[in-house]
């Protein structure tokens, strides 16, 4: 999930491969199709994401869709890595949803969370905060597996990524 270790051009394909490879229980009850149109310097790329009660099928073929998401490729890369949030992007007009707006909410359930979050902390403070976070993360590890996975992932992401562009 570390955005910088891979060529960014593959991030979107990887994301679609990932969500279509396995069942997505977070999409239970959702049966609909979303077209995703991404503007790029050399034109536009379109994906059709069909969700069928927890199963996802992604293709590059045209087809009927209940909603269309439009933005540019670069920004969508940030969305699929969790660096950018799809819902606030829609409110900002950075991303546009036409059709059934609820499908943006449904789709965002399979998007990753933020790799880390900087809340304007001076570097010295940041180190102290990270230490406190790490201690807290290890504290929760003992209790539940779920928390520890999330916390460890967040901690790893924090280490690998130094800055946060928004």
């Amino acid at each position, binding site marked *: 999930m570390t955005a910088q270790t891979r060529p960014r051009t593959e991030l979107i394909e990887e994301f679609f491969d990932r969500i279509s490879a396995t069942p997505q229980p977070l999409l239970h009850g959702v049966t609909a199709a979303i077209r995703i149109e991404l503007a790029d310097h050399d034109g536009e790329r379109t994906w059709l994401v069909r969700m069928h009660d927890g199963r996802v099928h992604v293709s590059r073929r045209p087809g009927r869709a209940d909603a269309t998401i439009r933005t540019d490729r670069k920004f969508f890369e940030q969305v699929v890595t969790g660096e950018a949030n799809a819902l*606030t992007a829609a409110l*900002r007009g950075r991303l546009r*949803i036409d059709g*059934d707006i609820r499908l943006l909410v449904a789709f965002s359930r399979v998007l990753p969370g*933020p790799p880390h979050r900087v*809340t304007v902390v001076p570097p010295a403070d940041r180190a102290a905060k990270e230490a406190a976070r790490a201690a807290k993360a290890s504290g*929760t590890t003992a209790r539940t597996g779920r*928390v520890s996975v999330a916390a460890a992932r967040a901690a790893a992401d924090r280490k690998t990524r130094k800055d946060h562009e928004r």
Partner: protein
Amino acid sequence: MTIGQVNILDGNTFVVCDKRGDIEATPEDTSGLFSFDTRFLSKWILTINGQRLNSLSVDDLQYFESRFFLAPGTGSIYVNATLSVVRRRAVGNGFHEELTLLNHAEEPADVVVRVDADADFADMFEIKDSIGKKGRYYQRVGSDHLLIGYERDTFHRETLITSSEPAEFDERGLTMRVHIEPHSEWSADLNVVTALLGWGQRITQPKYGHAGRKERPMAESLRRWIDEAPRLETDRESLRSTYRRSLVDLAALRFNPPIGSGANLPAAGLPWFMAVFGRDAIITSLQALPFTPELAATTLLALGALQGVRVDDFREEEPGRILHEIRYGETAAFEEQPHSPYYGNADATALYVVLLDEYERWTADTELVRACEPYARAALRWIDEYGDRQGNGYVSYKRTNEETGLENQCWKDSWDAISYRDGRLPGFPRATCELQGYAYDAKFRGARLARYVWDDQELARRLDEEARDLRRRFNRDFWISDGGYFAVALDADGSKVDSLTSNIGHLLWSGIVDPPKARSIVRHLMGPRLFSGWGVRTLAEGEARYNPIGYHNGTVWPFDNSIIAWGLRRYGYKQEAARIASAMLDAAEYFNGRLPEAFAGYDRSFTQYPVEYPTACSPQAWSTGTPLLLLRTMLGLNTSGQFLVTDPAVPPDIGYIALLDIPGRWGRIDAFGRGRPFTDDPRRRWTRPGQR
């Protein structure tokens, strides 16, 4: 709201204006046309020949429609009153204003009609906190329109103003030169349309929808809403009008969240909280369940669809957590505020399961309960995995967003709402008592759903065991034996936070209180330190932070009292529940049937009337739901298997109550109750928790 202001609303669009229909906002006040948490008009002033108008009267035709009767002139209305002005305004996606001038004179009239307009595009949060704008304003004037816009990077909000009659538009409004024959009238339709522009959308010419054209379907929808609710018959006139007021206000507060389920659920309250709040939506749906069960259905689906799925410290999102608040304004869009959605609450997740079970008991809508099963299971997991922040078996909270997150993540969410008797504030994580009650109830009810609807006996057994264990530990760890009540919270180090609060009433509702302890709890709730005569105070008189006008530190909250009355009924304290109902309904009379968010905790004998809390929201959803839940507690309405059971305990100042056509799994059934004098019978019955 301050007196003299008029509110009209539709979904998350509403207008706050003065009695003339004018909007003249200052950066700090809430006048304006609002939509999506943004002020799309901050000025809308009508003048005739350069003069402001006098208000003769205002008709609130419907909650979405008002009519203002006006006359020109600054002094007495008898001066030059040959001209009348009527503004009829309906809210839609913006608003539609039908402006009519009537010339009563023998002579023709030539008048200059001017509307000054402006939009500051303030975010609700900026008005609350009065912060400046970071973007750029622009105006575009056309021969038939004025467009006012605001942009910041890709963020665009626009207001478009048009008129059906010829008008001269300029950057600050529009002017119409009108000739009216003797005893004739002239009218114009003014449209104000709001727009949020998405990525790549560029408006070159007006192509917005027509504002205000939903009037007829809205009137129809309101009529159906009232027709479908049970009919109330009673000899107490004020109760009838309070009931009707509640139904209409609930209809007005119905909110169709743009990124939600597509159906209506209750928004929290006007004006600050015309947005989806998880806790408020759930409580209001619980209160209104016997009356309008569809609110609960949409609340369950919408909150489920927006349930947390990942860990995000900024939004305090966690898998299974039910959201706290969603906002659509500029500060949310730019992530200066976390409400997209913000998840920082520790109670809505358990309450979600409580509502789901209560909904099933009333409606037998197993289809919806199965559709919500994954949400409810995730919610139950959250209670143990994330809610239990210390690993001590209690739900507690400590914000992960230290910049803009909430310190107190329970319903009493002001910063100083949870304190020791001596006023000290406890540390974090903080485990308030009612959270444990909700968690207990969620497990208990989750077990019932698992057993009878989801057919998962293993889960049912486990949840039952956990509920029993939680209850046993809670009655030991939170009990303050020398005071005879439960601590409001456990501090981070496990110490009991020992102030006496209304929270103990919620514990009765959840059923977590061991029956032998209930009598002492009830004595406190109805005793002089908590009971003001108008209701139960949030914090008892005598505690260091007690303040009769402290937001959560001494005021009386109607919703809080309705939950307490429900709790009293659960433990068999019928008369005490009736006393609370009686006091609340008395208070409602002073507010024309519309209970405010909170009123002052002064003793009833001291003020004679309930003093409204200064900046309280009104109408507010869970205050609006309060009379409904009190009708339920007075009639003792409950489900028992396939049946509706009643066990009335109506206060003596009400002769009779008949609630007809109560919808539920039984079809429709009527319930009746007669007022009985209060006696001071020391014998108290209690039902075992679970026997409702």
